[in-house]
């Protein structure tokens, strides 16, 4: 039973265009969501997060949108750069106020940004 789903295994975009990565979840108890980026042979690197009390969080070229009613979040990268090519994982946790909760990850989406 996958509680966090990333239905697109891969995405290819042109440099300078927008990349949109999608994530769906099923557990209503999730209240904190994160995106991680992973390069080959490295561990996942934290990118951006959003609490369930917000519907948008922006950090430079990266914006995460949360639609709680649809149990859906998305990561927008504008403009996309070749260095953004990596695997992107969506993750969720319940009980954010507890701080160090277990993360449940999706399977990842491999983003390729073509020059």
């Amino acid at each position, binding site marked *: 039973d996958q509680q966090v789903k990333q239905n697109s295994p891969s995405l290819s975009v042109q440099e300078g265009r927008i990349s949109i990565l999608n994530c769906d979840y099923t557990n209503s108890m999730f209240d904190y969501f994160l995106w991680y980026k992973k390069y080959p042979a490295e*561990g996942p690197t934290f990118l951006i997060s959003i609490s369930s009390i917000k519907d948008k969080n922006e950090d430079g070229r990266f914006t995460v949108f949360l639609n709680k009613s649809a149990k859906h979040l998305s990561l927008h990268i504008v403009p996309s750069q070749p260095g953004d090519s990596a695997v992107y994982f969506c993750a969720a946790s319940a009980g954010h106020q507890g701080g160090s909760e277990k993360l449940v990850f999706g399977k990842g989406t491999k983003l390729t940004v073509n020059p």
Partner: protein
Amino acid sequence: EAGVVQSPRYKIIEKKQPVAFWCNPISGHNTLYWYRQNLGQGPELLIRYENEEAVDDSQLPKDRFSAERLKGVDSTLKIQPAELGDSAVYLCASTGQGPNEQYFGPGTRLTVT
């Protein structure tokens, strides 16, 4: 500031052999996690420590896996005996108080032949 350190980075063993992985979290981080990442999947939690106490080990296959964090700092994860299906990347992560961003080490890629 140094990140999460893991060793070894790669390990190849024959099935039925034991293997151990080591992790040193970011200084001051009280919470330490071990995850396993199978090919084409996201990381899955094996065990979570708060200081030296294992507070969530529900996903750890206890018949062959064990872990310890004796002084609440670094940690070891052991598999004995290893099986073919244990081939995966084993990731260690840590976090401090407050926000939920976990910081991951580079992982140990285990191949069981």
